[in-house]
């Protein structure tokens, strides 16, 4: 699953004079340069080609730019770290120490990789700034893996079973790794000794689910994988089934009932600006025009699904207004 996180890292050394590719100019939202040549540290090895843009992408899982740049103020490493370490009276790494400590703090944990050749590659294998040797690194990349489903037995007295379908959240609900696992280190998801990454209900579950609606997660028995028709009791047909959750549900807590505005936002466009139910062939009389879409379309997006009997009785009931001729509004299948 966590394929996004497993974006292969690319660090290549070269002795060739590739100029750093300039990124978008200026500003705090600047993503910085695409590629940097780290060539200011004297030593046994040549320059290291550092794919800055790749690492910018990876930093989203953590604290963003601060992961490497320490503070919100983004500045090059060499601004604070001297290329030549001379001081032995302060606890301030030189540029070489800073590079290695920073890079290896992730690489070592992520790939358990401490061979120098990972970054200090053979100059003959160097790829130009425009080329990215992803394929070479995919072989080394330890992909993060997760079970499709986790079942927990909790201390909840009435409904102890919590079934968490990780695959549903990642693939069906379209959440990215960082949505739930932000703040975890690389090695917590990747590598041979990967641990289960830390998630808290407060930071993950409750962002989308109400904390006071136990039955969302807690059940007496294990739940099957998500199926919109069964879980939400609303079938999705082509046209609806490829929409993202948020297209209908917006930012509301799940499970939630989409607003009629969400329906109209698409269907109005189909009928030229303002949605007119009459354009579907069914004219809504009287109070019916005030109903929300889902009041009638309660079981799915089949046009035939709206039912009269959910509100109306065939016989007059005390306190309920009798509708005139039932046959006029009943559906053929009813």
């Amino acid at each position, binding site marked *: 699953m966590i394929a996004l996180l497993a974006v292969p890292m690319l660090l290549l050394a070269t002795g060739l004079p590739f100029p750093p590719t300039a990124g978008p100019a200026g500003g705090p939202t600047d993503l910085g340069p695409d590629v940097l040549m780290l060539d200011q540290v004297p030593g046994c090895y040549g320059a290291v080609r550092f794919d800055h843009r790749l690492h910018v992408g990876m930093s989203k899982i953590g604290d963003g730019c601060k992961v490497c740049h320490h503070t919100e103020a983004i500045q090059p490493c060499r601004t604070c770290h001297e290329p030549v370490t001379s001081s032995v009276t302060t606890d301030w790494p030189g540029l070489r120490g800073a590079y290695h400590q920073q890079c290896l703090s992730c690489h070592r944990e992520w790939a358990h990789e401490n*061979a120098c050749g990972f970054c200090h590659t053979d100059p003959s294998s160097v790829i130009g700034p425009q080329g990215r040797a992803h394929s070479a690194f995919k072989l080394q990349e330890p992909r993060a893996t997760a079970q499709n489903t986790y079942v927990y037995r909790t201390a909840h007295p009435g409904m102890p079973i919590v079934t968490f379908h990780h695959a549903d959240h990642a693939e069906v609900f379209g959440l990215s790794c960082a949505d739930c696992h932000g703040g975890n*280190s690389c090695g917590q998801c990747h590598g041979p000794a990967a641990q289960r990454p830390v998630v808290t209900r407060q930071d993950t579950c409750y962002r989308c689910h109400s904390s006071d609606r136990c039955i969302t997660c807690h059940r007496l028995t294990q739940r099957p994988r998500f199926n919109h028709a069964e879980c939400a009791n609303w079938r999705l047909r082509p046209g609806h089934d490829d929409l993202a959750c948020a297209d209908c549900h917006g930012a509301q807590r799940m499970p939630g009932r989409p607003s009629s505005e969400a329906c109209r936002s698409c269907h109005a466009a189909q009928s030229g600006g303002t949605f007119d139910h009459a354009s579907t062939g069914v004219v809504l009389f009287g109070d019916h025009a005030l109903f929300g879409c889902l009041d009638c379309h309660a079981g799915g997006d089949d046009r035939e699904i709206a039912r009269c009997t959910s509100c109306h009785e065939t016989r007059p009931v005390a306190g309920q207004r009798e509708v005139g001729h039932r046959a006029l509004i009943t559906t053929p299948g009813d």
Partner: protein
Amino acid sequence: MKALEADQALVSRAGTPGTPGSPETPAGPSRRDFVRLTATLAALTIGGQALASDHGKPGKLSPDRMAVLVDLTRCVGCRRCEWACADANGNPHGVIAECDDQSVFTARRNPGNGQFCVVNRSETVDAAGTPVHAKIQCMHCEHPPCVSACLVGAMRKDPTGPVTYDPSRCIGCRYCMVACPFERLSYEYDRRFTPRVRKCEMCRHLTAKGEVPACVGICPVEALQYGRREDLLRIAHERIARHPDTYTDRVYGETEGGGTSWLYLSARPFETLATLGFPALPDRSPAERTESIQHGIFKWGAAPMVLGALLATLNKVTAKGDGA
């Protein structure tokens, strides 16, 4: 000096004319006086030398003595220090890329003849799956048992930090190797005529030129820092205070075995790293106990006097017995 003057006075007295037995001889010291004078001078010379020597005695260290701080949380086991050490000390070594060979970590290694420092890897890993790598070498104790054990002063504790070895004095008794609580010394058993004890000397040939030890200089992650021991201890404790979740609250070598010049910081408790070269040692140097016994016995020449008295008594008793 007083004794010398007294001796001279004795000489002048002895030289006065008119001594019985030889009126015709010219004025000069008698044989007895000559022997007495010679013995006194010899005693003064030997005694002076003995007093001047600080061999094996603590308390002569410079406050500016140098040390190395090793941060085990930074060490990644690249083994470049091993290569640089061999290169700087004239030991055999291959090309630097050979250091990437991780297979050496399968066996526990100890510094040896051709290798004054080695890096070992822990068998266990932490929560993130990362093992601990630890470089070990002579710890350059503050009060070195090897120096204390050395009969001839070949091992010396330099006031500036390093424990040095002088092969020209060494008689090859290898007491130093037995004495070392860290077992970091090796011996050239295969060198037939001039075998030497081999150990790290903190690259004193480089530090004399103002450079840092070779291992410190090459360490890419700056896991090794060379500096005044006082500064490094301060840095180490500050680092622990700054990252209390990262480090175990102890600087190995601050007090272990009476303190060492190599100081270690670790994420894991050092008790769990005993096999990596961090034995549990008391805060006092093992040399302190032996020295207190040995020096106590011979203080003010007590032992010879007591022994002499015993022998004399025994002799007298035995002689009486014979006579009876």
